[in-house]
């Protein structure tokens, strides 16, 4: 499943309560902690682990996208968690 940057934006938009660009701060976009985890659950491999520690450094929507991308499922012959 390939998720494009545009896909990410539209997914994020479903949880955001305000307009945003990559440099928008998370709280300014109206994204709550729960929403961030929900997003992670949506994009990550079902068998993956999400290390919420990574969320601590997520300040902007841009940071969020980087973090989400790191959770994307790997190729089929790779197993293992995305952190």
């Amino acid at each position: 499943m390939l998720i494009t940057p545009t896909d990410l934006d539209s997914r994020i938009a479903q949880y955001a309560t305000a307009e945003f660009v990559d440099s928008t701060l998370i709280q300014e976009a109206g994204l709550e902690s729960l929403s961030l985890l929900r997003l992670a659950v949506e994009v990550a491999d079902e068998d993956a682990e999400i290390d919420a520690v990574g969320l601590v450094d997520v300040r902007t929507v841009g940071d969020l996208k980087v973090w989400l991308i790191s959770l994307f499922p790997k190729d089929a012959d790779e197993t293992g968690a995305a952190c």
Partner: protein
Amino acid sequence: MLKNTTAPGAADPTLLPLTNAQKGLLVVDSRVPTREIYNQIMQFDLDPRLSDDAVDHALAVLVTVQPALRQVFGHLPRMHSRFTPPPETGHVPVERVDVPPEEYAAAAEALARRLGQRPFDLATGPAYRFGYVRATDGSAAAILLCGHHLIGDGVSTGPIIRDLESALTSKLTTEDIETLREARESAFLRELEAQNRASGSPETAEHVKIWAERLRNVPPLVLNPRPGRPEETDFSGARLSWLLGEREASDFQETCKRLSVTPFVLLSAVYGAVLARHGGVSTVLIGSPLSARRTVRSYDLCGFFVNTLPVTVDVDWSRTVDEHIAGTVREAVDYCRGRVSVTLDQLVAGVGQDRTSNRNPLFSCMLAMQDTFDGKSTGAVVGVREPGNGTAKFDLWLGATKVESRWLLELEYDRHLISEAVADALLASLRTALRRTLADGTRPLADLFTDWITDGDLPGTAVEPADAGRPAPVPAGGLAEWIEQAARRTPDAIAVEEPLRNLTYGELLAAAGRTADGLARQGVTPGQVVGLSLDGLCDTVIVMLAILRRGATYLPLDTSLPWERLAHMVDQAGCRLIVGRGLGLPGTRTTGLAELSVPGAGPRAVGGSADSAVYLMFTSGSSGVPKGVVMGHRPLLNLAAWQISAMEHDAATRFLQYAPLGFDVSFQEIIPTLVSGGTVVSREPADRRDFPALIRRIEETRVSHVFLPVAALRPFVQAARRASARFPGLRRVCVSGEQLLVDDEIRRFFADHPECVLVNLYGPTETNAATVHEMRGDDARWPAHAPIGRPLPGVAAYVVDGTGHLAPVGVPGELHLGGVSPADGYLDAERTAAGFLPDRFSGDSASRMYRTGDQVVRDADGTLIFLGRRDGQTKIRGYRVELGEIEAIANTAAGVRQSVAVARGLGADRELVLFLAAEPGADPDHTELQARISAALPSYMSPSWIFDTDGIPTSRTGKTDREALTALADRLITERKTNAATTAVEYASDLERGLAAIWSSILGTDSIARDRSLIDYGAHSLNIFTAFAEIEEEYGTRVPVPEFFRSPTIATLAELVRASLAEDARNARDADDAEGEARA
């Protein structure tokens, strides 16, 4: 229900591992008697049109597809859980309630309570139960789920609601349900394994080490501090709540955006500030459950997947609110979020706190965000909330729940530890603080709070003036005139009584008049300071009155003080004339009373005025020199007026004069008595420390009022008991000087004297007595830690907390005394400015208040309780000692780089210990230092022990760690005593050996040398009395105390005992002879 039938040791695949958090909770659960405190209740408001069948089916499905609900727990072979089989429809425990619509809300509440109050059997299960409440007109319905915390957490709400909705709308087939069940059970196990992997990793271990170090020195937060606060609790709780208004809710959201913080950070920041204010601390640990979920699939699971971790909120009252939130607290929260694999039990073990009570380790307050349900339901579930169940797991729990985009804040408190009034005060602070935060984040943190004002009045809630009917009119001419008015009314009444001399009011008036003229002739002008060092109470009172009549100020000079100190006092005071014994102090002349009383020509003394200062008394100063307190008329006129009324003074009053004149208590013994026309009775010939003699004197003289230092109260009642003495005329026993601790012995005395009231007075020299608390023999229960009570009329008592505001109920703060009570000031203007501040609470720019340095707390009815001090001031047997004064002297000794004095021991056994850090290569001479101290300071300020130390320990904040030194002192002293015990001591006789044994047991030390002062071993005025009582019992003879003080050694004591026995024998023979003669 399956039982655990696996043979121990065999690996059973149906056993699930537990996470550390689960293990911790399981252990704690098994230890508390009120296990229902871990019951959690969720209420799901439903679309009321759903049928009963639909609901039944949905509940069974929910339990099937959420395996956490089907857990049961066991301890052997190791702690584990297992899933019980899914229930069939209709076999899920549900309590159904159908009520008329007007009773719906109450019924739902009651149902929640019922569900929550019964504990669960975690071994057999189920660990959940449901409730279903419906309004009979179909207007409302709700499902309540009560489960043990082990099976669910905050994030579980979402998955439960999603599954409930699917189940209620019948979207799932039987196959779907079975597939889902298997997948969920597998996911559950995977999540447990993932969490255990994370918390067991080396990285986590490293985090624990560093974090534990940071936590180790945070002082505990104690809300509603008071002596005797229960160590254990029964976990009963109550809740207060506050739903934010719409405007407030949107401001809340705006503020979070502006500062770029989550609601959790904002609430932690404000809650932390509130806790810091109410607990009187500057660092607070708030326990908060943080989601520790790791696997993606776990987000569909209900389960206990949180780690509750302490968020450290450092409070700097001068920092701005915005900085506090976006800087300090955000970092603190991120610190926790970055270490969420750490479990609480690991931290507790790392910090190494000992858990001796059933209180929570590490933190006593918690913040739980219930924002895990965003309210966007598709229809079946229209709302969710979590009612309380009348218990409290923590001293204070703050829950924040999103209700229709507004925050509902609920404060749940432990009723055993926190009273309703204190809880109300906490909520009020929280409200004000949050509102102010949202309004203006640029203000300093301290400004989030306001002065606590009850009933529209400033909380100086004064004692009701006792309505004994005679308001004493206070004349403008001051105390002298007031006393003279009384004297003229009853000139033949006795004003002062000594064993060999009585002084009538007429005589007092005449003598004082002559003496005042004499003072005038000697050049004393109004406003000057005259020293007083006379023997004899009559003479002393005459001269006191004469000085007041002259409009001058009297300075008591205790001749037992070191000469150096007296010289300093008179020099500071500008005192040129001393009436009494020749002291040879530089710059002064001494004159006798006889000289002054000679009638002669010269200026006649005017009547004195209320504008002049009455007395000058010195008190210990921290910088090494004592401070002279100049006490004016106004506070004393007020005090005397109150006392006359409250203590029922009249012409029949007979007040024992016990206190040294240099103690301000002497004022209360003498002046109000004279103003009332009563009699001041000398304690002579009894020595102050000779309690049996005092008891005899009190019996003989039938005094009605006695004022003792707190330290003397126990010896006093004990001596009374041993002598089987009763005092039918005694009406008041007043005490002051330090914290009064009441025990059964003291209570018994007052129960035996039902006409006598125990009056606990409090007030530093800078205000004289300012607050009072009375205890009567028939009071149902006397508190062990006696309160200092309420302020006197005219006195304002302000409790100022860490934020600089007037403290609410239950919040500790520094006591400031204002109103009419403050003295004029110190002799030193700089110190006056530092200690006597403008009273910013009174609204009157001219009034002042004295900052006492005493920490107090006010309880719900306004009574003040003394908590202690935070600085280097302490009381030794009632004497005020500034440790700094001793250190200042010690620092002048050769070779001493730094010195620290500490006080150790309790009550009468409190003693001073001095630590010396030497200059490199130096070896300070302890004997020489002790001599230096004795030459400069009063005897009670002499350290009992002096130790050398390599370095002075400092605390986290860089200040001298007196606590550590006190602990060190305890160890070193125990060591010394033990070592002393092993050295053999020689005694000259069996008598000496026997006396040494008595002292040994009292002083807790062996090997007392026969010719060394017992004072060195810890003997003091109070345990001496105990020793003498035992000596009397053992040897059958009474040894005079004053003789002993001249040379307080075992050898001398033996001499005295022998002499006393010999005298007793002689007296007995004489009596026999006389009897024999009479018969003959």
